[in-house]
């Protein structure tokens, strides 16, 4: 019953691995309908989970969608197969800007197809916060003690601190990292909670005034509470990009390419966008959006706002270990 031993060898099958709730399930049915290719669809919540399941070899995934640094890792470890994007009918819907961003993990644009992207920023309740917020400073100056919610994610927390201190988020300089860690330690007493997925709900519910959040979540939060605003601080932030790669285990490159091409098609990309409202690199979709949506920085970040942003490509083991130690120290404090 495993993915690769599908008995219906007459049928073509693709085993697809993606973040959960990251694709409109009806699109999968549509794809099968159009091409006759069966999809075995598997979901996970973090890049590491995806990597772990893939690398353990239990399931032979053909296509994986994961985030920047993990994409880089897969490529670096030779787990990805090159794809000829130029031959695909709809790949041109992906804006050049995103191919360029993708180069930070896939220098030749040979492996990875951008799927969604976004930023890390602050979601805040305008009724509870004095004036407009434009800096990470609010997280560190103690003004909103016990009223801020941090991401319970090692990488994101360090990125914020590094950016606030003016360093690169991909730094391997131990001193810079330790400086960031000290900052986070000092901050801890002011933090109401470190949360992953519930940040949006907490801000919506009014349990806290400011929260660190991914841009797409900010849009959703706004839907429930129109007093909420999203900002990418001026110090800059993380620019994340989730991309598709074809694994080296994929035996049916043709089908895989068909699937990737399908995802780039405007109607499909629109459906997926409307399923989650994360920023899409598909320019055809962006072009067709309502003005209101188009102008929402949480949905379509402006170029200025991401000018200072970086893509995370950090895979240096020593740095990760350092992160890890310092993070545990912070949490254990």
């Amino acid at each position: 019953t495993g993915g690769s031993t599908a008995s219906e060898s007459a049928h073509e099958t693709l085993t697809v691995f993606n973040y959960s709730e990251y694709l409109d399930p009806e699109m999968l049915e549509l794809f099968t309908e159009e091409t006759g290719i069966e999809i075995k669809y598997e979901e996970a919540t973090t890049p590491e989970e995806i990597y772990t399941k893939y690398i353990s070899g239990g399931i032979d995934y053909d296509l994986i969608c994961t985030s920047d640094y993990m994409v880089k890792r897969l490529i670096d470890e030779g787990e990805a197969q090159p794809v000829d994007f130029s031959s695909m009918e709809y790949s041109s819907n992906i804006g050049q800007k995103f191919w360029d961003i993708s180069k930070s993990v896939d220098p030749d644009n040979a492996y990875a197809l951008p799927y969604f992207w976004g930023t890390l920023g602050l979601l805040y309740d305008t009724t509870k916060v004095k004036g407009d917020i434009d800096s990470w400073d609010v997280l560190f100056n103690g003004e909103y003690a016990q009223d801020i919610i941090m991401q319970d994610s090692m990488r994101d927390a360090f990125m914020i601190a590094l950016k606030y201190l003016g360093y690169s988020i991909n730094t391997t300089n131990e001193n810079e990292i330790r400086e960031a860690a000290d900052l986070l330690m000092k901050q801890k007493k002011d933090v109401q909670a470190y949360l992953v997925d519930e940040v949006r709900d907490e801000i919506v519910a009014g349990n806290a005034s400011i929260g660190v959040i991914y841009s797409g979540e900010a849009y959703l939060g706004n839907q429930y509470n129109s007093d909420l605003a999203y900002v990418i601080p001026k110090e800059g932030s993380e620019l994340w990009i989730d991309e598709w790669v074809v694994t080296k285990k994929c035996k049916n490159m043709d089908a895989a390419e068909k699937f990737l091409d399908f995802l780039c098609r405007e109607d499909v990309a629109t459906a997926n966008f409307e399923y989650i409202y994360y920023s899409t690199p598909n320019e055809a979709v962006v072009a067709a959006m309502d003005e209101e949506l188009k102008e929402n920085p949480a949905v379509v970040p402006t170029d200025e706002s991401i000018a200072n942003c970086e893509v995370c490509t950090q895979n240096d083991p020593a740095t990760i270990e350092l992160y890890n130690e310092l993070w545990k120290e912070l949490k254990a404090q």
Partner: protein
Amino acid sequence: MNRSRTRLLAIPYIIWIAGFTVIPLIFIIAKAMTDQGGAFTVGNLFAIFSPIHRKALIMSLSLAAVSTVICILIAYPAAIILRESHIKKKSIILFILILPMWMNFILRILAMQMLISNNGIINHILEVLSLPQIKIINTPQAIVLGMVYDYLPYMLLPVLNSILSIPQDVIEAAQDLGSDRLHVITHIILPLSLGGVGSGITMVFVPSMTEFVIANILGGGKILLLGNIIEQEFTVSMNWNLGSGLSVSLMAFVLITTLIFGRGNEERAGGFSL
């Protein structure tokens, strides 16, 4: 019963243990005894004594212990009250106690969070009643509350079972000899239900040692438990060797404690059944 022959009945189970407990355990121990490069090391096993891990261990132990004690403190009076009640079918009680557990664990913990958060349902109710607000979310107390909530049925069931199976005439004999209510509880019911408490402790204390979801959701991620660390080593840091090492030493720790404290418990009939 022919003991030498019935012993053979355990063979399928032994095979199962060998196949699905021991072999995977060997995998984990092997991981624990090597570093990320694959070289032999005992460092991961002793990593639990590093200051941060020790801190987390102590925190985990205290939260698990406090939760277990609270579970016992809640379960005991409940069991005694139920014993004294006139409900004929006591098994219906067991069902009622276990029923909440049929709702998904994460959903229940999320619901608990909605109840106790600063702007939560309880505080809204308190506000209406113009009573002081509770500020418990994102504290160790909230984690304890969550653990008690989630594990209480595992304590209630065995405790209730063992208390229900104490013969009434023994209690009456004690009353007859001059025991008042409290004395009966401390000198008859308590010692006679130790077996059930033992089962309950195993089923509450042990899993709550490795718990991390509750700590994440209700503790606001500000309290680091050993469960969090192990989970993080596996899923974030991708240092399986350290994760395995911590896990193996925790396992050894728990097994040794249960061996020490569990002694004699297995001799007493600790009912853990309907």
